[in-house]
């Protein structure tokens, strides 16, 4: 199990590195899909099969397909000049990222870090009741207010996306100039 975790973690890190190194946006999206899939595998190792399924369905399935659609809709080729020239801002960025990594790792592996009191959902209970049932129970009892609020958030986001992505009907930046163009000829 530990070996499986190390293999998946390595694949995960390789996919993430490919995301920030590969110039082509489509390949970037595909490497992120690979990272999300290996993360789902790690979730299965952590006894959370439901989260893994949701991860694959929503993240790798829905969100990344949306990203790929937009990338292909905008026809983004490798137009960004991404050559790692070690200019000062990039060096500063790398130093900042490494600093964050070092700080997080030093906190996580320090001997002073302790876990709090244990919860009431051990693996045996997950296996007996089923994670889906436990999640559903919690979602509609203890977390019912966040659940309702987040449904409103989702609806607002959908309406906002529709309004934002709509072409202006008579606006100056929409089809209006293209429609007027034949009249001048």
């Amino acid at each position: 199990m530990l070996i499986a975790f190390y293999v998946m973690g390595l694949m995960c890190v390789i996919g993430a590195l490919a995301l920030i190194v590969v110039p082509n946006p489509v390949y970037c999206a595909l490497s992120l899909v690979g990272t999300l899939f290996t993360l789902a595998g790690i979730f299965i190792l952590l006894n959370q099969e439901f989260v893994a399924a949701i991860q694959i369905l929503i993240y790798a399935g829905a969100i990344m397909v949306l990203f790929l659609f937009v990338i292909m809709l905008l026809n983004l080729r490798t137009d960004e000049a991404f050559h790692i020239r070690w200019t000062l801002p990039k060096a500063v960025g790398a130093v900042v990222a490494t600093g964050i990594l070092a700080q997080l790792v030093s906190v996580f592996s320090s001997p002073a870090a302790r876990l709090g009191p244990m919860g009431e959902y051990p693996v045996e209970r997950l296996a007996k009741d089923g994670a889906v049932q436990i999640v559903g129970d919690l979602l509609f009892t203890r977390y019912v207010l966040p659940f309702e609020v987040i449904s409103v958030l989702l609806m607002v986001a959908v309406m906002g996306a529709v309004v934002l992505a709509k072409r202006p009907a008579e606006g100056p930046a929409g089809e209006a100039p293209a429609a007027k163009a034949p009249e001048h000829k």
Partner: protein
Amino acid sequence: MIPISHLLTLSAILFAIGVGGVILRRNAIIVFMCVELMLNAVNLAFVSFSYAMNSMTGIMFVFFVLVVAAAEAVVGLAIMLQIFRGKGTLNIDEINLMKW
């Protein structure tokens, strides 16, 4: 039993890679994908803590983070579509005005 420090270290590595991508890359969509990677790193930390502490709270947070990530992706991509229509580029060095 996977040691939680290893899980959290993997989460920290993914988060740092996401930060590096946000700072280094210039394409707005790739910057956006790096933000998604950072959200996933946090999700991994939530699930790890749930696993180590026999708790379901982290799992519930993962669901809410997932919904927020989906909403963010939808709205952000719509904004990028509009920016691309207006300016013809998604290079974040050239997108420096709120109105044009």
